[in-house]
């Protein structure tokens, strides 16, 4: 029998995924439905991603802001294996500023001795805050891990894009549309997590335009496009 060589198994890195979810009354109906569906799918996809990438220790925390204030849903820093989404119901105001404060405090409380990949902070909202949000946002942007984070906002419905844009100011990704759940999940898993992870897994990436946002599917031969892809993409207007 041949003895295999000694192997360390790569560098295990911590990857923080912070989800700030709007559960306020203005999200009532289809909006909260889209958010719930997306988060349910996200939990499955992050688990899949974690299994394929054992060198990553993914830590997820969800903060919901609604009539009950801004509170951590489920547990703090759950692993993908433990992360299961329980549907939210929409109620009350939109204490977005309080959610930014919770996010900052949680980031500041992470053990300093560990090494982290660039954290991902996602704001999923229709962007109608009812509290003072600008000062807490400034504090979040200024804290050490907040400064290093990739922040992006997912606009639900007729969102106030100015406010969401301020949240992800300076981020490579910016404000995304979420007309359906699958696309939202793609944005979170494929763009944000994979970008943070790129250097560790050794995948190359390009700078400049985001390729999957600039696809001109119109040049593909007739009948060659996957219908499920069309259903779940933003390209339908380009095609029909």
């Amino acid at each position, binding site marked *: *029998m*041949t*003895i*295999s*060589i*000694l*192997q*360390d*198994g*790569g*560098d*295990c*890195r911590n990857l923080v995924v912070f989800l700030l979810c709007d559960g306020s009354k203005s999200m009532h109906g289809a909006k909260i439905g889209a958010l719930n569906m997306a988060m349910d799918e996200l939990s499955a*996809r992050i688990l899949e991603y974690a299994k394929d990438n*054992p*060198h990553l220790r993914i830590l997820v925390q969800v903060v919901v802001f609604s009539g009950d204030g801004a509170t951590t849903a489920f547990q703090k820093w759950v692993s993908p294996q433990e992360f299961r989404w329980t549907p939210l119901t929409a109620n009350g105001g939109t204490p977005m500023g309080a959610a930014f404060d919770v996010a900052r405090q949680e980031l500041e409380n992470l053990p*300093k001795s560990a*090494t*982290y*990949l*660039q*954290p991902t902070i996602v704001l999923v909202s229709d962007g109608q805050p009812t509290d003072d949000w600008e000062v807490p946002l400034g504090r979040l942007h200024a804290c*050490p*891990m907040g400064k*290093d984070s990739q922040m992006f906002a997912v606009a639900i419905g007729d969102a106030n894009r100015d406010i969401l844009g301020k949240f992800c100011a300076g981020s490579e990704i910016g404000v995304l549309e979420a007309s359906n759940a*699958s696309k939202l999940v*793609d944005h979170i898993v494929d763009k944000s997590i994979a970008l943070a992870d*790129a*250097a*560790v*897994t*050794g*995948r*190359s*990436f*390009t*700078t*400049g*335009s985001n*390729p*999957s*946002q*600039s*696809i*001109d*599917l*119109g*040049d*593909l*031969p*007739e*009948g*060659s*496009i*996957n*219908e*499920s*892809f069309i*259903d*779940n993409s933003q390209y339908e207007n380009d095609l029909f």
Partner: protein
Amino acid sequence: MSEQNHILKIGTVLATIAGELLTILSYIGKGGQGEVYLCEMRGRQQAFKLFFPGAATPTQLAQLEVNIQDGSPSSALVFPKAWVPGKSGNPIGYVMEYVGSDYVTLADRVNAKCDLTFLPLATACISLTHAMRLLHASGKVYGDCNLTNIMIQTRPLTGAVKIIDPDNIIPPSVVSGLVYTPNMAAPEILREKVLPNLETDLFSLAKAIFLMILGADPYVGKQFDTAGTLTLDKQFELYGRTARFVFDPVNRENRPDSKGKAALIRNWKGLPGWMKKVFIEAFCEGHSQPHKRIRESQWLDHLIRLRDSISICKNCSAQVFLDNGQPARCWNCTESVNARRILKTERSEIVVNSGTKVFPHHVDKHSRHEVKKPVAEVVRHPRDKRVLCLKNLTEKRWKVKQTDGALKEVEKGGAASLARGTQIIIGDEVAEIK
């Protein structure tokens, strides 16, 4: 990746520019510049790369046609074979060789997802270096060496390699899309956005060789453990401006963690001293001084010598590197490991194991680095399996001077004794058994 997230419909039939039909069979995956599918063309499985049209630059598209016309300079380099036009007549993608599941990626090796031994890994490094040398000799550079583009055959465990993803193969210093991987790109690419050239390829090659043999990054040590958040900018700094080889003989500040990198440390200790010096040169001076990087021909000399230095532990069968034929401690069971015999030629010393091959590189000064077709192989004696002998795989007779002084001739297919003191004339070279 869920089934619905790829662009092409399974079963779609596309036509190459020459009118050959290909059928899309399944989705394989996607990268920064497009998606890859398994397809069938001319009754054979191939891969089809679909560009994200925004991702392929005009230079790349023009180079695609040149690369198809030129063909691959090495069977280890997967090249585009034919391009597929879209409705506008411009390329939407291309067909290339499909590399199946009998290959693993260099990322799999680094992440300990496969069982490997040093012999096929050293062979894989030789094959990789050969392929890069032939590519460079054809006037092109690879540009985007990374852990998922280099694949190693594990079934069977031959050490053959395939370098996939030919999107960025281009003449040196040509402006194309800037594609890079922080942990594989040369520091001048990270620092100054220098365009890929021969020297940047040589840096990535050195890293690939280190990752292959030692299984870890040569710059990821204490500096990374204490870096805080590893943002992209931070990684550029740690792999670029402040990078320090983890085994830098002078500055020990970036030593690897003794627990998390225990295998790396033991693997390093198990290398022959001369090979450690090669890596020190590659990752200390070679980091900041591109013109001092180790060339492909030098790597081939070192890697063939490294492969020739492998012995097998009698106690546990682990593969152990010997330093100039001297006994070493087995890294697995700590028993002393000796060379059973050493076959010495003018410029090589080959540790003899069952199955060891002698190549023209070892015995013909005009065939340096020729390690594809062996001229001799160590085999077990047909009547006594404990006895090893050297089988003649050439058309020419060998002259053998036995230890008692008697002269003997060995025809093709015959075998010579490996008794100490035996001299075998192979080609123009006298090989002596020690």
